[in-house]
């Protein structure tokens, strides 16, 4: 490091050399820098995952297309799913959590700053392992062999008999390593939220974002651990002669399904609860009203957390469970719609009687509300196990979970991005480009994922690299693919806005939204250690109390 700084020659200038700048970012344990690293890393992965999705959609634009081979297509959907879940959605939400939680609870950093850095770098290393499979997946025999077992990697397709070479090993290790990082982050979230809150901030006065991330943290520990265990078991099967999932030697393919989905379903809530948190911060500020029914929102989130641990086998209705098993998982899955519905109603209640400012963060949150409603309703259809026997494994279910992951989760992530960008960068984003981003992405989203339900109803299974003409699927697949190009245009507007705002954006000031939580009480971007003096709060909206001393919240809570 010393030689680098001499070489660049920072003698008189207080400016950093590139080496110092880089070292600063790589060795940082500051939660704000790590949060930004998480977010940038995830955005890069989002682009890669998006390219993979585009390749699949081009292949499916017409029946019997020859754009890519079946092998390449199978790698694309495996890499797309794995990337989007493990290396986009989770890390970007962890990034926002890492950045915001200490600021919002009035702390100077996370509880364990070094663990925080370790967690990020483990996640980043996991993603690198996954993508190294393109080079190293086939061992010494050649390049271009990524995992092709699907993102839930059902046994026995992952056994050495069916997955030769090392591509599946890279997949396993990537999930294993990033999973350990996720557990570290979850421990950090929980400890920070429980132990680092500023004076006066009782559990009942925490911002909802902190509450919801607390629940997420608990779910991550409960859900990712079995997945990590299953990956170790798979390694044992593949290299140490184990037979957990080796059906040729008495192992059980269904065991893997249980392990995977007891991770996989809570995982949906691991992803969506932080997005509920964003909506629960953005919607009140842009409606100029406090969140409607705060205690009910907390209770509903905790209820979702508990019930989400008992619904996993609704991904397995077609595996031939007994009628009692199917009935049980039908009822638990349907029950989860009640607390979820309560949350939607409370957001509507928050907007009711407010003065809704339709800026980009709020537009994305309103998009989220509409799309999450529909995702929830198709979810109810899928929860009815006989109906599920028809819909599961088809394009209907693909459309359903993209409605959740893109329509709800990605939309709120974009909303959160525009909402907190001024805080993170100190500059205002470009409203015109942000609105162009919203409208293009909205049109593309609906073209793609609304019409994707239909081929599923008409009998088109997922994960097929091509399909037969004349089954009524052609026109829908064409429309779905056209939608992708609108989404790409939207993302280009997003990237353009991001770059423009980074360099040309207007200074944002400390509190551009006239908001109420503690992160807006410090400078933009916040200084090292966030607060010169640790704040003391008396209500859930400390800045409201400050701005309205005649009508403070603590009188009513």
């Amino acid at each position, binding site marked *: 490091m010393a030689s680098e700084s001499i070489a660049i020659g920072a003698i008189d200038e207080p400016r950093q050399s590139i080496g110092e700048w880089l070292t600063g970012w790589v060795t940082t344990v500051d939660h704000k820098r790590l949060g930004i690293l998480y977010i940038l890393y995830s955005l890069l992965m989002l682009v890669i995952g998006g390219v993979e999705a585009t390749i699949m959609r081009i292949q499916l634009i017409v029946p019997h297309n020859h754009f890519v081979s079946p092998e390449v297509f199978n790698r694309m959907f495996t890499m797309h799913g794995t990337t989007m879940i493990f290396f986009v959605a989770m890390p970007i939400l962890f990034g926002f959590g890492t950045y915001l939680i200490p600021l919002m609870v009035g702390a100077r950093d996370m509880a364990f700053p070094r663990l925080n850095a370790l967690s990020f770098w483990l996640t980043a290393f996991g993603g690198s392992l996954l993508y190294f499979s393109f080079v190293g997946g086939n061992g010494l025999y050649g390049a271009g062999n990524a995992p092709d077992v699907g993102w839930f990697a059902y046994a026995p397709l992952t056994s050495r008999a069916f997955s030769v070479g090392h591509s599946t090993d890279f997949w396993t290790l990537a999930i294993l390593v990033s999973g350990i990082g996720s557990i570290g982050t979850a421990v950090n979230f929980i400890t920070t939220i429980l132990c680092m809150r500023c004076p006066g901030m009782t559990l009942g006065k925490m911002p909802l974002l902190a509450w919801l991330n607390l629940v997420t943290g608990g779910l991550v520990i409960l859900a990712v651990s079995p997945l990590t265990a299953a990956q170790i078991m798979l390694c044992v099967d593949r290299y140490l002669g184990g037979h957990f999932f080796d059906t040729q030697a008495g192992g059980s393919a269904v065991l893997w399904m249980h392990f995977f989905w007891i991770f996989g379903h809570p995982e949906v809530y691991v992803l969506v609860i932080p997005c509920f948190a964003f909506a629960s911060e953005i919607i009140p500020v842009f409606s100029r009203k406090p969140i409607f029914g705060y205690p009910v929102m907390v209770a509903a989130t905790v209820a979702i957390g508990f019930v989400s641990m008992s619904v996993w086998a609704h991904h397995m209705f*077609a595996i031939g469970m007994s009628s009692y098993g199917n009935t049980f998982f039908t009822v638990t899955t349907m029950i989860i719609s009640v607390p979820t519905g309560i949350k939607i109603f409370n957001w509507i209640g928050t907007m009711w009687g407010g003065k809704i400012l339709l800026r980009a963060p709020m537009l994305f949150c309103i998009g989220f509300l509409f799309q999450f409603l529909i995702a929830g309703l198709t979810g109810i259809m899928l929860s009815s196990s006989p109906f599920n026997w028809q819909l599961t494994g088809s394009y209907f279910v693909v459309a359903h979970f993209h409605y959740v992951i893109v329509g709800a989760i990605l939309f709120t992530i974009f909303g959160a991005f525009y909402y907190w960008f001024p805080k993170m960068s100190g500059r205002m984003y470009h409203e015109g480009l942000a609105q162009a981003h919203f409208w293009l992405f909205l049109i593309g989203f609906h073209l793609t994922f609304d019409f994707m339900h239909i081929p599923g109803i*008409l009998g088109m299974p997922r994960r097929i690299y091509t399909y*037969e003409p004349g089954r009524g699927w052609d026109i829908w697949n064409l429309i779905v693919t056209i939608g992708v190009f609108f989404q790409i245009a939207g993302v280009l507007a997003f990237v353009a806005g991001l770059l423009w705002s980074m360099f040309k954006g207007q200074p944002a000031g400390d509190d551009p939204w006239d908001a109420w939580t503690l992160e807006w009480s410090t400078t933009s971007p916040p200084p090292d250690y966030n607060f010169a003096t640790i704040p003391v709060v008396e209500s859930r909206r400390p800045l409201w109390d400050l701005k309205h001393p005649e009508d403070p919240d603590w009188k009513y809570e």
Partner: protein
Amino acid sequence: MARLVVLVFGSFFAGSLAFAGPNDIPSIFRPSSTPADSIFGLSHLVLAITGCIFAVVFSLMVYVVLKFRRRSGDDGREPPQVYGSNQVELAWTVIPGLIVLVLFLATARVILSIQDAPRPANAIDVIAIGHQYWWEFRYPGLGVVTANELHVPVSDPANPTPTFITLLSADTDHSFWVPQLAGKTDLIPNRTNHTWIDPHTTGIFLGQCAQYCGVQHAKMLLRVYVDSHGDFDRWVQQQKIAAAPAAANGDTDAVQTGRRVFESTACINCHAVSGTVANGRFGPDLTHLMSRDTIASGAATNTPENLRAWIQKPDSIKPGSLMPAMNLTKQDLDAVTAYLETLR
């Protein structure tokens, strides 16, 4: 935008029944068998309830966004700060709870009626075995073995003759899905699953593997031929006839050569032709190959040209198929094709 969304989702939810197009479209909304029909009935209730919820909540959202958006002449004052309401919260907890109860009871009935349906004495038994990337069908009571094209008798609701299918897998996971006949049931190695169908009309019903099973998952197609009882019995009788144990007098030279090539190369490691030395089990039984309309698990129609192309280079029709190209000479290729064409 709101109007567009209403249009799109209105047509999706209310009008999804209209997407049940012509006969060759395997739509779940054109059921032709009791399990698919029960699901169709249940889906009406589910779609009606979710459609009503959608209409109410969607309208509410549109109303709120339009009514409470900030106007241009806004005075900048904060609106009344409302923190919540226990009565309202209770209402939107209890009402969804009741809806869930109704949905659950209706669903439970259908689960039990399909999964725990009694098996009539005159039901046909079929064992379906999933292979990478084709279907093996065995009729243990009838002594018939075939592939990819399942023949079952039509079932008169007054005197049902359903087909009970035992689902096994030889390698990876697969899923048996013929949307017009029944929902999916997976074929999982080291596990025995069951499903049943009782098609009400004759005809061909299309389906395909619905659980990712490897490279050629996409071309693991499935056809169910629902025959009248007479046709089905004739089909069974014809399928039970073994091939001639040795070359017959009427055979042309090409057929005799083809038979010799077939029986002296690796073909017989995987394929069976009953009555001959060929008794492989890895690939489809070819005893009555020419009685099938398709080859390569439905990937191509069963014409002499396609058959020849398939034997010459399986990857040309189905890249990633486990059948190897045998590198036969042109003469041997023609001869084997000619021989296979005699397997009726």
